[in-house]
């Protein structure tokens, strides 16, 4: 969609590539700060990127 590598995205967000992979694979819930950064980067509302699920360990 945005034609960006995981490495490039990680660098822009100032996180590791493993964190980007973990978010993509639904293994890690990012903090609000990181979620907002992602939303701003993709110019989308947070709810379109993340879906709230109950009983998920952060």
């Amino acid at each position, binding site marked *: 969609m945005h034609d960006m590598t995981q490495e490039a995205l990680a660098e822009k967000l*100032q*996180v*590791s590539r*493993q*964190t980007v992979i*973990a978010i993509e694979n639904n293994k*890690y819930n*990012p*903090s609000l*700060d*990181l979620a907002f950064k992602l939303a701003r980067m993709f110019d989308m509302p947070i709810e379109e990127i993340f879906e709230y699920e109950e009983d998920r360990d*952060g």
Partner: protein
Amino acid sequence: MNNKTYRRYRIGIAIFVAATMSMAVSMDNTILAFSSVIIAIAFMAVVRSKTKRIVDEREVMVRQKAAQMTYAIFAPTIGMGSLLLILLADESNYYLEAMGVVLSYLTLFLIALFSISTLYFNRKYGGGHGKE
């Protein structure tokens, strides 16, 4: 220097220390053992200063969970171990009691440190009797 290069250096240093340590043990050479550790520490310090390492929120969370688990396992183990040593001690192996006492003090120190740091971080992040 990025994370990947840093990890490569770290593995290299670990191999170097393991090799020189095994050599030092087989040759019974204390100077070699000490010098290899000192060289490794110095080299790691240089490498770390040249690296732009990213410690992000996921890594912090991983460390927190690892620390929690370590405490949850280590505190009861060392506590029960010290109790067992004190109970097993008799006149023929009196040193067990001394070891048990030392371990029990270490357990108390560990618990005290955990409690104090919990209190500190709880206050730092808005817990306690603040304004409502």
